[in-house]
């Protein structure tokens, strides 16, 4: 629509003026007339989740009043989701962390003292120095999620520690990335390199798109469906996506592998795979055939409780549309502990459909690249010890849980300092007891956050970051079908005494004697010197928000655009010798999950379109619409238990842990063997006036987790709960 484009140009013109100039009230005010509103539009990117959509903030008289998507940005395509639209809810949250604070009481029983930044950072620097002296720099670990994290990673490296962890690996997409890496030599990427909009057949294994809202992905998903793509949704729960599905397969939780292997078997038995593609690009077909031959639909039907004929029908239908078939790789994949192998099964199935590198399947991201570095930075010190990635051969990152273990046991070396930035460790990591045990073992716990979520209770020092609408961050470089850069700049000045991470880390760095790593005078200088050698003017970027580079993107296999597979064999590995050598299954095998005992349900969880994990639960405009989560229970079982829809109950897990009270949602939309709740609720921090004690915390009930032997992912759907009437 030409209209929006023109409008956007109008926007950007004002944005340029607005962002760099201080609003000056018209003299009309002095004349006693209604003061005219001073309006500006400032480009930025959203931090309400990590899709980081390009956004434009409308600022009226120094207040952010509206957020909209930036049409120039591929993640948003001019649109924001519910959370993105509510971004100023974080900015104007009255419960925000307002000042740096030191805990003068015991750890976990805090007595807070407001201190100056100088004092807070002085304290932190002293502690960090002493830990380095006593234990070495690797004894400090970072757990971080979100944009400011790059500055923290930087200071950690300069300090000498390799232990940068993020929940996005072991608690999120690590298993799937490794599963795909082992198969194609590359992960599915983030954003996922999937051509949903042009797909003819989409398979969602869990992935609850629509509730899981990664903006552009949801847009493309709907586009695909609207263009007539057939949709299979495999989910024990009738998700929103299932509501759009051609086939909903209400699978018995934890048995997806059986379904996948059986699909693979049918496709191989009936010769339905993309022969030309497999012959050309894949290896190990024979081994695969051999390994899966016993996984018949009848067998799978018993395991999954999906009718055998439906398994056969969907396998055949899917093959009809190859290669325009998209087995969605999923994202949050740390489910049952065998997750890398499940992801590998999905990758193998995708290969059989010939959809890697094909339209309507997976595309190849642009080969163009851009690395932004500030000139003249001295080399980072070489870490003296290996990062904390456990004993898992495919833990390519330091992992949260290995770090937590090391903190408790001192193995392979002691960890004495944690910096938690934008990461609520109480809600993020399974088994809260273990997390608390680890934190109690620390010499220093630093929390960098914007809101007093429960993990702040465990801090020695709280460093209040300003929200994304008040700060600069590193330039976001995105690689999709094109390469693009997106800027984050403050729409308004930081409120209270909050500060951006770039400032906090620089001040801390100087206090740590790392000034050599911080030669820039201010953030604009820092950004300019990185951008200008690449021919990007900061001013232009500030105005446009996102700049994309036209390149020779070649997303699909074509003559002259042959795929490269970075596996050992340089081919798609249907059968993995590498895995075999390491003592793992070369082809995924099915292992029956433990069944809930009498009276118990398997606890499963997911997203609400109105919230991001726990971080939005106190946001006025999201809280209003979804104040507390509900426990989804099959209507039939609820009735048998004499429970009514809407009444409050308590969930008690296999280890006797009780949840907060939670509303029962008695529904036809879920299997009888599981209970579903939206992740992130049941906050224990009294300082969050809206979120406090609203709903139940899934993480509190996840006292057990299954560890993925390949990469250390934490399978979190292995807990069972019973439902108790509220006392």
């Amino acid at each position, binding site marked *: 629509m030409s209209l929006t484009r023109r409008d956007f140009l109008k926007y950007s013109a004002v944005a340029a003026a607005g962002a760099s100039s201080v609003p000056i009230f018209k003299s009309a005010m002095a004349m006693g007339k209604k003061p005219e509103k001073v309006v500006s539009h400032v480009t930025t990117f959203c931090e309400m989740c990590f899709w980081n959509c390009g956004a434009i903030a409308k600022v009226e008289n120094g207040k952010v009043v509206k957020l909209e998507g930036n049409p120039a940005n591929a993640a948003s395509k001019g649109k924001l989701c519910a959370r993105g639209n509510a971004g100023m809810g974080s900015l104007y949250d009255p419960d925000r962390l307002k000042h740096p604070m030191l805990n003068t009481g015991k750890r976990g029983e805090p007595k807070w003292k407001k201190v100056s930044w100088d004092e807070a950072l002085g304290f932190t620097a002293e502690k960090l120095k002493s830990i380095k002296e006593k234990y070495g720099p690797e004894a400090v670990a970072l757990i971080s999620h979100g944009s400011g994290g790059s500055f923290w990673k930087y200071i950690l490296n300069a300090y000498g520690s390799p232990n940068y962890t993020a929940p996005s690996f072991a608690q999120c997409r690590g298993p799937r990335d490794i599963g795909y890496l082992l198969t194609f030599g590359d992960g599915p990427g983030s954003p996922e390199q999937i051509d949903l909009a042009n797909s003819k057949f989409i398979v969602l294994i869990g992935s609850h798109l629509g509730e899981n809202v990664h903006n552009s992905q949801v847009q493309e998903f709907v586009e695909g469906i609207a263009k007539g793509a057939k949709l299979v949704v495999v989910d024990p729960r009738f998700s929103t996506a299932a509501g759009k599905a051609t086939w909903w397969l209400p699978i018995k939780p934890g048995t997806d592998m059986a379904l996948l292997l059986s699909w693979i078997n049918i496709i191989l038995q009936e010769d339905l795979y993309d022969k030309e593609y497999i012959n050309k690009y894949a290896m190990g077909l024979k081994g695969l055939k051999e390994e899966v031959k016993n996984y018949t639909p009848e067998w799978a039907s018993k395991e999954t409780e999906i009718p055998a004929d439906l398994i056969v029908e969907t396998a055949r239908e899917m093959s009809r549309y190859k290669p325009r078939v998209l087995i969605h790789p999923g994202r949050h994949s740390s489910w049952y502990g065998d997750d890398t192998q499940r992801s590998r099964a999905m990758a193998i199935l995708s290969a059989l459909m010939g959809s890697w590198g094909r339209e309507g399947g997976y595309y190849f991201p642009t080969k163009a690249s851009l690395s932004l570095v500030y000139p003249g930075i001295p080399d980072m010190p070489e870490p003296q010890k290996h990062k904390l990635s456990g004993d898992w051969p495919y833990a390519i990152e330091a992992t949260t849980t290995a770090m937590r273990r090391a903190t408790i046991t001192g193995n392979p070396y002691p960890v004495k300092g944690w910096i938690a930035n934008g990461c609520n460790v109480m809600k993020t990591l399974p088994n809260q007891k273990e997390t608390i045990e680890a934190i109690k073992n620390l010499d220093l716990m630093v929390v960098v956050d914007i809101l007093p979520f429960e993990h702040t209770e465990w801090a020695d020092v709280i460093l209040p970051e300003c929200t994304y609408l008040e700060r600069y961050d590193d330039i976001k470089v995105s690689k999709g079908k094109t390469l693009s850069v997106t800027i984050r700049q403050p729409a308004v000045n930081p409120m209270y005494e909050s500060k951006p991470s770039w400032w906090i880390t620089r001040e801390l760095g100087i206090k740590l004697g790392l000034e050599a790593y911080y030669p820039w005078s201010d953030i604009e200088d820092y950004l300019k010197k990185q951008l200008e050698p690449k021919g990007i003017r900061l001013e232009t970027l500030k105005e446009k928000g996102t700049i994309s580079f036209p390149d020779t993107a070649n997303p699909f296999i074509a003559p002259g655009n042959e795929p490269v597979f970075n596996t050992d064999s340089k081919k798609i590995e249907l059968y993995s010798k590498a895995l075999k050598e390491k003592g793992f299954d070369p082809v995924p095998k099915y292992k029956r999950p433990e069944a809930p005992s009498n009276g118990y349900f398997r606890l499963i969880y997911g997203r609400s379109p*109105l919230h991001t994990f726990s971080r939005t639960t106190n946001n006025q405009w999201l809280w209003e*619409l*979804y104040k507390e989560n509900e426990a989804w229970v099959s209507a039939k079982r609820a009735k048998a238990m004499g429970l009514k829809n809407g009444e409050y109950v308590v969930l008690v897990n296999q280890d006797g842990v009780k949840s907060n009270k939670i509303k029962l949602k008695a*529904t*036809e*939309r879920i299997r009888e063997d599981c209970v579903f709740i939206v992740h992130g609720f049941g906050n224990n921090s009294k300082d969050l006036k809206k979120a406090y004690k609203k709903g139940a915390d899934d993480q509190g009930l996840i006292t057990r987790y299954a560890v993925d032997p390949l990469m250390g992912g934490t399978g979190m759907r292995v807990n069972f709960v019973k439902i108790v009437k509220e006392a």
Partner: protein
Amino acid sequence: MKEISVIGANAITYPHLDIWNWTIAVYLFLGGMVAGLMVLGAISQFRSKPLTGEGVSPASCYLSPVLAPILLSIGMFFIFLDLTRKLNSFWFYLNFNPMSPMSWGAWGVGAIIPVSVLWALASIPEQYRHYLKWPKLQDFSFKLSAYRNKLAVANFALGIFLGIYTGVLLSGFVARPLWNSALLPILFLNGGLSTGAALLVLIARDPKEKLFFTKADIALITSEIVVIILFFYGQLTSTAPHVDAIAPFFTTGYYFPFWIAVFTLGIGLPLALVLDVMEVAGFAKIRVHLSAWFVLIGGLVIRLALVYVGQLSSLSDIVHR
């Protein structure tokens, strides 16, 4: 059965309409009663000879005109209470919307009050005129008394209008199936007349007069029972939303108060009727006052019930009941 969930619902419309409370019911009740006073007061005046000299006119002939504007003003006060922008009330009189019952009501009541005040002045018996403090007013009252019958005619007509209007106010809403019935105005007019009659039974002193209104009430209660039955029958034989609309009246549990309302009416009105008939038939010394109270309470209950239950009713498929 459907599972319904709504994100972004407003508390005053979901799970059902929740905008009007007892103040509206009291307004409708008083409005109806005043309509009854106006109509029956006028009839009463036509029946008695124009007053001159010493004769004492029946109480209804002057109490009806006097009470009408007072009770109506009290009613108006209650509806005024309900307005959320009271200071803007003058806008009622800067606009007339012929399609809006509320507008008719504002203008109608605006006209009724002065006309009924004039009527009251005209109807004040000579021996009570001195209660009017100012001699000028007494003069005026004397002069007006000549027009007493003409004013009675006007008040009779306006009374009918008022009685019907209290029903049309609700029945005009296509959105609310319980209210959206052509019988509702009839029901309200009828109910208004019977409560008016009941009030007159209570305040009349002369036994003959009491007997007259008791007889009137027999007719009115009888027709009211018939209209109520027809009203429910009409709903029951209409579309699904109308059928659903009356369900709360016949459900126990959460809607128990409405069930009670029906029960009260079901017992109260016939009982009132029987008592009246017994009185007229000359049975012993049954006090008709009891019957009159039944009618008054019934009149209030029926309006309360209709105001509340009407708001539970809806054409939309997302309203829970």
